[in-house]
């Protein structure tokens, strides 16, 4: 079949292209000659990477359209099967998302200076391309060892990128926390997958699935729990989410976009691939655990996003919130599928996959535009930005689309998934297994609260960072952004709107991965009614929404008042005037600050957040005549306080106890030797 050949060639082009881009970028440009060829190297690397990423997106899209591809194989001479890369139905939406986000992230890289790229820039681009390649390998690997190698490569390359941008202590410590937690996760994942491979006698995914289905439950479920625990680290669920808000914002904007837009989804992909037991059924308790963890994660992420003053870190906390939603939907699907409710599980799983792509697109756009804005305004602190919407209107329009989408506004890419999750929760409550009856109302209320809090956080991000008057001279003098970058961001903004508006088509396209997970009993066309215009969980009588019809209505209801206002109040023009400040000169510091805007929420949730607040009056002589006030406020992360501090203390205590063994007495050590010898003799007898 010729089309399949093209598709296979596309995958090869994507993989080799990304590798070539990394090589081209790493080549030193001989600037002494000033040759035209050397100056072209950085652009060539970037162009190759963009084309390769687009090829990757095309592979994903073609697979969703139903085109099966032969996998690329390579005999590495290892036992347990050939290394293979291929895109099956489950991987297709993730590959599509990765391709689109990677292409935009390469397009949004700042162009190299005319004199040739510096060493740091070359290293950054090479690592960027290699990171994209590792991500592509994670999503396309069909071989467990290759998957683990790609997983490790993804972690190490992204850690290098996290520490590359600034030589600040903050980035280094973020990189350390990230590496430490990731390696605990990778160890669990590696142990689980390799033990499974040992039982299967092969590394091939199909053999692993068969082996897992064959194993008795008592043997399979510890393996699945181990693998899940390892994967959940990348997804960023409580309490192993702490690395995410530290590491994601420290990387440069395009890398943050890849980290939050695509790498977090690698955790989700792994859970679907390995823990769901690859087309079998999830093990008992797995789904309910994910629902509970996901709800808590969504709430914690949203709450910390509200109180975060750093623009990029706010977005990272919002990623934690959305990771929680993904886990919630996945767990719900798992619990329902295990209970035999395939149609309903399909609703939750469709919500999960749709939201994974929708959030990936929105968050990539948010990170790219906010990174550009904070770069232009000279600070990541929201209190030092402001007024960017007037100064950089096109960039701000991109940021606005992302912010509105992430606040869960209808018609944009994060809404339909949340709507389906809510529908599945309601139906799961009435028809699902008993534990779900207890959990579903709390998950529903948690979903609502997390969405409302996330909206507040997004209003803070855009309202304080982009609107109002510039809060500092640096923000007032924000540099313009390269038009190429702005165009790339607006294109991504268009995709965010399209994914939301065309949700019914998106759902139909997701039919293939849904069918792969749920088996032939699931009918993907049942998610769509009204001639493909409305989205409805089966049975179609329950409820439906139609983004396109709403968009049409919205256009009418926008046009009618507008035309009427124009016609009736023709003489009443809109006039621009300075803001009124009760007769005194308006100062940017009179505006609400990011801290002030969220003060009510900080007070309401004060018990949970444990806000640290310190006000000091600096005075000379009498304390009643202060000369200056010093204010400091901070919110220690909850997980660190409740989980990691006791953990670290326990480890220290245990090592303290272990030290007692080493008293430094020679006779004692000889005694140990003797005891070990006797024990070995007894054991080996």
């Amino acid at each position, binding site marked *: 079949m010729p089309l399949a050949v093209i598709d296979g060639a596309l995958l090869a082009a994507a993989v080799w292209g990304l590798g070539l881009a990394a090589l081209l970028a790493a080549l030193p440009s001989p600037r002494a000659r000033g040759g035209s060829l050397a100056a072209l190297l950085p652009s060539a690397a970037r162009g190759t990477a963009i084309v390769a990423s687009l090829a990757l997106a095309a592979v994903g899209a073609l697979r969703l359209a139903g085109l099966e591809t032969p996998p690329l194989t390579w005999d590495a001479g290892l036992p347990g099967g050939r290394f293979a890369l291929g895109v099956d139905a489950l991987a297709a939406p993730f590959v599509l998302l990765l391709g689109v986000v990677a292409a935009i992230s390469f397009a949004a890289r700042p162009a190299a200076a005319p004199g040739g790229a510096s060493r740091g820039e070359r290293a950054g681009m090479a690592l960027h391309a290699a990171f994209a390649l590792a991500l592509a390998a994670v999503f396309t690997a069909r071989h467990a060892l290759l998957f683990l190698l790609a997983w490790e490569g993804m972690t190490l390359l992204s850690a290098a990128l996290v520490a590359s941008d600034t030589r600040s202590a903050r980035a280094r410590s973020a990189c350390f926390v990230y590496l430490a937690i990731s390696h605990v996760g990778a160890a669990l994942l590696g142990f689980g997958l390799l033990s499974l491979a040992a039982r299967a006698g092969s590394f091939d995914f199909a053999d692993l699935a068969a082996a897992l289905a064959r194993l008795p439950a008592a043997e399979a479920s510890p393996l699945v729990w181990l693998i899940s625990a390892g994967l959940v680290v990348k997804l960023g669920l409580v309490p192993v989410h702490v690395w995410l808000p530290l590491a994601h914002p420290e990387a440069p904007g395009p890398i943050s976009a890849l980290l939050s837009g695509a790498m977090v989804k690698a955790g989700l992909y792994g859970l679907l691939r390995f823990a769901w037991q690859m087309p079998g059924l999830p093990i008992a308790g797995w789904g309910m655990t994910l629902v509970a963890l996901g709800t808590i994660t969504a709430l914690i992420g949203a709450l910390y996003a509200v109180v975060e003053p750093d623009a990029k870190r706010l977005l990272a906390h919002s990623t934690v919130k959305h990771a929680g939603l993904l886990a919630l939907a996945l767990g719900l699907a798992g619990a329902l599928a295990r209970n035999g409710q395939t149609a309903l599980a399909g609703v939750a799983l469709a919500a999960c996959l749709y939201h994974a792509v929708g959030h990936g697109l929105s968050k990539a756009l948010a990170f790219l535009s906010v990174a550009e804005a904070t770069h232009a305004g000279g600070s990541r602190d929201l209190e030092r930005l402001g007024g960017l919407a007037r100064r950089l209107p096109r960039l701000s329009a991109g940021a606005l689309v992302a912010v*509105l989408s992430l606040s869960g506004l209808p018609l944009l890419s994060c809404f339909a998934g949340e709507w389906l999750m809510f529908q599945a929760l309601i139906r799961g409550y009435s028809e699902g297994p008993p534990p779900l009856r207890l959990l579903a109302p709390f998950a529903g209320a948690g979903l609502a609260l997390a969405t*409302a809090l996330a909206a507040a956080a997004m209003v803070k991000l855009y309202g304080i960072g982009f609107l109002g008057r510039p809060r500092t001279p640096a923000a007032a003098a924000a540099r313009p952004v390269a038009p190429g970058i702005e165009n790339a961001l607006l294109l991504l903004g268009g995709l965010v709107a399209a994914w939301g508006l065309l949700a019914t088509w998106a759902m139909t396209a997701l039919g293939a991965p849904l069918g792969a997970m749920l088996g032939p009993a699931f009918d993907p066309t049942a998610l769509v009614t009204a001639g493909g215009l409305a989205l409805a969980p089966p049975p179609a009588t329950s409820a439906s929404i139609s983004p396109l019809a709403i968009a049409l209505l919205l256009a009418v209801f926008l046009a009618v008042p507008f035309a009427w206002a124009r016609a009736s109040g023709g003489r009443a023009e809109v006039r*621009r005037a300075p803001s009124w400040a009760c007769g005194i000169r308006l100062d940017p510091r009179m505006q609400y600050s990011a801290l002030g805007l969220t003060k009510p929420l900080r007070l309401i949730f004060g018990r949970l957040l444990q806000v640290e607040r310190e006000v000091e009056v600096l005075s000379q002589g009498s304390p009643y005549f202060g000369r200056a006030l010093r204010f400091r406020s901070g919110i220690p992360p909850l997980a660190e306080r409740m989980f990691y501090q006791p953990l670290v203390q326990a480890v220290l205590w245990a090592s303290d106890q272990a030290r007692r063994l080493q008293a430094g007495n020679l006779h004692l050590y000889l005694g140990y030797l003797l005891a070990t010898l006797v024990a070995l003799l007894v054991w080996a007898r």
Partner: protein
Amino acid sequence: MTALLVLLQTALLVALAPLFNGVVGALKARLQMRRGAPVWQRYADLARLMGKESVISEDASWLARAVPYLTLAAILVAASWTPVLLARSGMSFAGDLVMTVALLAAARVLQALAALEAGTTFGGMGASRHLALSGLAEPALMLAVFTLAIGAHSTDLSTISRAVATAPLGWLSPSHLLALAAIWLVVVSETGRVPVDNPVTHLELTMIHEALVLEYSGRHLALLEWAGAVRQMVLLTLVASLFLPWGIALEPGSVALWRGLAAWLGKLLAFAVVIAVSESVTAKMRLFRVPEFLGMAFLLSLLALASASLLR
């Protein structure tokens, strides 16, 4: 016919929205031994504002000019599938109760953004309070939605309305009454009524909703005021049609529709009396007491849900 009915019901909600505020105002004036403004006053206010020049801050971006139109449009879309006279809507396929909540939330987010445009203090004050309080109202509202949806096996507005109307004494069940109490508290908070907010206040330090629109004037202010009135009308109509659907027409027919209209107007008048009396006899709460008020709504919703599953 269905298209005409959708149009008619939306038009009713839009046209009568200012009148409801006028009636509440007149009732309150009577209760406070004042003569008060005529019930039509709000229409005159809107007409006056429509004819006036609109002033926008020099610091504002294009968003400030778009938000009044976007807010009104979002609320009108939500109004288009609200069952007013008839518990069967031609627009049911486009949206449900969750979509209504989301559209109202969208209007709220846009207004909060616009309030931060001018770079003054009051806009930020309004945005800050509005976000906090409606954020807390959301879970209570969603739990009430949950209770309703479980009873009707649907989140579709007309289906819920029919299910409650046709169930014999279904509205008398404890879960239904508890959910009604919860949703009333949420509606009071979302429409900016006493004791959460005072709709006629001009004291900067206490206002919430008024501070959000403080920077707007002229035509833009008229659109926002009207949008606020329609939002209140939509929320009250939802209470009337979903919790107390007596008299609502189940099938289209002129007699049934006229009866539906009379029932709807009667219920709205009753709501106006309840609001006027409660606004006259209660004082506004301190801002940081409101979370307790909304916490009560959440608790009532939870009790409603618990009793719904216990008493099945």
